[in-house]
């Protein structure tokens, strides 16, 4: 297999763009990456979006987007694997280059959610679960997060207020990320007094609804040689799926992540303590479970370790940077790439070699991990 590199990355601030269409959001991100001058040639475009069918009324969005941006005749396709679609697009772009099918792939993430009120967004977002079994019974992703949070508090005798540490930390981190949607700090009372989404989950435990577009340019060795930007290697990218919640032996275990992480560890030499981590904290309870599944904290102890973690979600995470579904995975990679780079992301910099990005859909229905590495 050929080596794959991140040649360039760009993103726009996650926000509510009432006066822009999804095409304009992509154009804004694309203009930034083109202005950098690191894009010479594109062989393939992979587009990630979750709700374009239902919210934007657009099928074959990748072709329409290619036409609109004047990228034709470059071939394009769209991927969708629920909330982890963005990282899946990178996985696919990676495969296209590793296999020799392409030398450079533009991976575009876009989601435009502010076209409709949140009840419509939630109704459609809930379709990431099994429609015939779960969604039709009115189960939505935050309901599962609430069940899991209740079980976590019960099993480990953790008080509700102790679980506010994650959103507090994420909002603090996001205040330094110029691309984050929620750039304000919160305290314990603010989290606890925010409205209830699904008992015991509060508004400030959950990701905000927002629009966004992020782009990564992946390239082969050949592209790397021609580029004058700082490139990073995509060392490993892998994924797994799991059982639905109602068939799990233990709802506090994320087996897809476990399997993915095991595969990644076998295929790479990674010291997690030194790596910059971006994890999928759509609801704060998931952050604790992910930290435990990755072995960063013992079972039931993740809330106690959050304070000391200085290498996780410097972006603010889904919680505060935002979660424009299909674009999220690409934001995570773009942020890790920028923070690890010599230039940094605003004032955000991390002195390390590796970046590990985790993305999942629902409560770990599928989990993906991407390891990137600085090329010295």
């Amino acid at each position, binding site marked *: 297999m050929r080596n794959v590199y991140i040649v360039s990355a760009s993103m726009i601030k996650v926000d*509510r763009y*009432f*006066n822009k269409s999804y095409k304009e959001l992509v154009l804004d991100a694309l203009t930034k990456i083109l202005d950098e001058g690191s894009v010479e040639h594109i062989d393939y475009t992979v587009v990630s979006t979750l709700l374009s069918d239902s919210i934007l009324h657009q099928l074959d969005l990748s072709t329409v987007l290619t036409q609109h941006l004047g990228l034709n005749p470059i071939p394009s396709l769209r991927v969708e694997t629920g909330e982890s679609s963005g990282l899946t697009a990178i996985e696919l772009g990676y495969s296209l280059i590793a296999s020799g099918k392409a030398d450079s792939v533009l991976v575009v993430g876009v989601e435009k959610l*502010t076209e409709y*009120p*949140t009840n419509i967004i939630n109704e459609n977002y809930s379709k990431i679960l099994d429609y015939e079994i779960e969604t039709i019974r009115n189960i939505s992703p935050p309901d599962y997060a609430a069940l899991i949070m209740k079980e976590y508090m019960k099993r480990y005798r953790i008080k509700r207020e102790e679980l506010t540490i994650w959103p507090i930390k994420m909002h603090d981190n996001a205040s330094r990320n110029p691309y984050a949607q929620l750039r304000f700090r919160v305290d314990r009372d603010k989290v606890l*007094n*925010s*409205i*209830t989404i699904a008992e015991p989950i509060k508004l400030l435990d959950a990701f905000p609804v927002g629009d966004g577009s992020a782009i990564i340019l992946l390239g082969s060795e050949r592209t790397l040689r021609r580029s004058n930007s700082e490139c990073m290697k995509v060392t490993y990218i892998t994924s797994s799926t799991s059982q639905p919640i109602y068939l799990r032996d233990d709802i506090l275990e994320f087996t897809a992540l476990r399997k993915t992480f095991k595969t990644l560890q076998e295929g790479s030499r990674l010291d997690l303590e030194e790596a910059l981590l971006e994890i999928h904290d759509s609801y704060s309870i998931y952050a604790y479970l992910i930290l435990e599944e990755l072995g960063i904290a013992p079972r039931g102890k993740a809330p106690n370790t959050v304070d000391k973690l200085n290498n996780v979600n410097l972006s603010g995470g889904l919680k505060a940077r935002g979660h424009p579904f299909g674009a999220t995975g690409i934001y995570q990679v773009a942020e890790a790439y920028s923070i690890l780079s010599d230039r940094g992301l605003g004032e955000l910099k991390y002195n390390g070699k590796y970046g590990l990005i985790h993305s999942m859909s629902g409560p770990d229905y599928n989990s993906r991990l991407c390891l990137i590495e600085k090329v010295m």
Partner: protein
Amino acid sequence: MVTLFELREGVGIVGWGVYIPIWRVRAVEIAKMWGFSEELTRSLWIEEKAVASEDEDTVTMGWYAAKVAIERGGIDPNHIGAIFVGTESKPYAVKPSATIIADALMDSNIKSASDIEFACRAGGEGIRNSIALVASGMTKYALVIGSDTAQANPGDVLELTASSGAAAYVIGPAQESVAVFEGSTVYVTDTPDFWRRDGSPYPQHGEIFTGEPAYFHHIVSAAKLLFKELGLKPSDFDYAVFHQPNGKFPLQVGRMLGFPKEKILPGIVTPWIGNTYNGSSLIGLAKVLEEAKPGSRILVVTFGSGAGSDAFSIIVKEGIEERVKRGPKVIDFLKRKKYVSYGEYAKNRRIITRIR
């Protein structure tokens, strides 16, 4: 482009009156009914809302407020040459409410009369029209009424606030007025943040879209235009009254414009009576007029979805205290209340459909 309504002849407020139904339903009761969390009522700052009784509507409430406005102004109603009713909840889809109210108040048929529809700001448009008619000499007095029995889809977040109430103003020559208009600006765009399609019993809204690009953008734009045209700044005003869909928004928009809370709170009524739509900012203004001292300057900014805002600068004159005493005050209506259950509210607002 003329941005400012520059007054060649002095025009002002001769009289005013309000009406708020006696019944209140607590916001937490509505929240409980539909499974909203209580924090939502606190975050919007809505405690209770006024509920019109089965035999009250936009016309009856508007009539009462207008009657008080005429009495307070001490004028002969037959000298009113124009009557505008700003409402989005007329009892008749086709047939003016203005004629019903006018005939109940006066004998003269020599007047223009019409209903104006622009969501919650139609009353503001009525005031602008009235200023023009009085300033041009086409009429001595004009009567503007903002009255609504606001509809909300049961279980929608709007139901926590949509309420009933009315305000009326007699606009006339400055020499008879106790508060004069210094100037006015208007700002209107096509912004579909809230609407009710023909035949639909309840309005729909774009949720957060009703905030940033609608309420906040229009109010801030109209107010800033007024500051610029009149060469004024927030510190030149003693009071600021904004359209108040809930308790939180007017404080927030005031902060954006640079007004301290103390200048906004006197005109806040929504937390205790709900959003009376066309009555909202006009009841707030009435409350401020009833406590303001001569020489005070008041900023009033309306907002109506769809969307638009009028900004007015009003200066209070001598003699206001005496005129306040001539009729029931806003504070009297705020104190006059009896609570009803969700069921009684649903019956009175005809949310329960009964076939006869």
